[in-house]
């Protein structure tokens, strides 16, 4: 059998597709659902579905296939929720399981934040990303960059301040 390297059924290529689109898909799903766990579930199921149909989906269509499947799954869940809600009209809406920090946020706001981060001066951006994305403590960052904790804190402080100016009134 001749193995097509760009066949989705090929495990390696499937992983490549995952790495290419998973983040975007999760983001897309988060803003649809406003629920991180649900977004994660649909994300996983969409890729499972892609794998199941790997023979039928052309590799150039993989992305649109994933997003379509994900969107339909989301719509079905919404539809189901509606039915359940109608059934349980008497039930008081359950308190949101999300932490209060996960309040409803529009995608545009996130784009603004990201833009603001990329506009930061390089030194501030490095510290900021190490802290927020890589989850390093100020002390660890200080050690790694061979600067004082105070300097790290200052850079974070000004980074936040600059971002606030960029984002302006919400």
């Amino acid at each position, binding site marked *: 059998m001749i193995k097509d390297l760009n066949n989705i059924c090929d495990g390696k290529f499937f992983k490549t597709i995952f790495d290419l689109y998973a983040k975007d898909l*999760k983001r897309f799903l988060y803003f649809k659902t406003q629920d991180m766990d649900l977004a994660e579930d649909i994300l996983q199921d969409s*890729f499972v579905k892609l794998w199941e149909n790997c023979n039928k989906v052309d590799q150039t269509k993989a992305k649109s296939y994933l997003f379509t499947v994900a969107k339909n799954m989301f719509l079905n869940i919404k539809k189901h929720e509606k039915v*359940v809600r109608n*059934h349980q009209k008497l039930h008081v809406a359950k308190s949101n399981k999300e932490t209060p920090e996960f309040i409803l946020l529009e995608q545009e706001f996130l784009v603004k934040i990201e833009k603001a981060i990329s506009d930061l001066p390089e030194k501030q951006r490095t510290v900021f990303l190490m802290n*927020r*994305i890589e989850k390093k403590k100020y002390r660890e960052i200080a050690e790694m960059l061979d600067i004082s904790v105070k300097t*790290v804190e200052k850079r*974070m402080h000004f980074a*936040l301040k600059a971002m606030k100016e960029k984002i302006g009134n919400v």
Partner: protein
Amino acid sequence: MESNKTHKDKEVYLAQWLDGKISDETLKEYVSEEDFLIYKKMQSGLLIMEELEKPLASSFNAVQQKIQQQKRTKFRRQTYRWSISIAASLVLFFGLYSSINVQSTTIETFFAHQKEIVLLDGSEVIMNSNSEISYQEREWNLKRDVNLKGEAFFKVKKGSSFTVLTDQGTVTVLGTKFNVNASDDFFEVICYEGKVKVNINKEDYFLTPNQAIRRINGNTIERWDSKSISPTWINGESSFKSVPLKYVIKALEKQYNLKFITTKIDDSLIFTGSFSHKNIEIALASVFKTMNISYSKKDKSVYELNHDK
């Protein structure tokens, strides 16, 4: 208050606030109300961004696991089909064999399967899942006796008396359509056409069309009228009328090959309704959602039931 002074360092308070070292209240002292709100919203936005930027290796592992699981069930389903065809040929083989010998013919159905069979006289039997019938072919011309475990729907050709024997009672007819459900301690007969005689504990009961009789767990015998013209399970649905939840759960287990942990619920609640044989999610939802019972998957086919709070 001493420590507050170090925080008052004008150039680090935002860093310390984001790090959780100083509170929202303290931050309010440093910045205007308006700015405070922006910082709060930025904080939420950052949390979401961080969450979305997390590496997705664990998600990929989860995807692979799900794929593996499905492969396994698919494989099982295939082997299952195999075993069915082997079983079917065995039944056929022994069927031929027993027509020469005095052996009883046994026909079984497994989980989520129904079988339609035609008896020697042209009577039809539709067996629901996980049921078993057996009869003596040799003596068929003398007496039409069928042993039943589980549930089946009978369309009996007119002729000599036709008897369905179960552990809990016998049903005798001449020519008619009726359904018998004899699973564990549940015994139910519904007559759809003709006339049926049901014998429970040496007592005779006669059913005319649309009448039904039931005895649960050795309790008193109930009689009622059934409105349908054939059992709903034939059309891929199981219906229940004021049946203790326990038996509905058993039926679900039988249909879908599941196991339910019922220790936390009251399974004597009465259920009226039906569930589909085609979609497990819909089936579970239609039984448990209406009873305000939540179900959570514990294992591949094990669910735990709980009352909704």
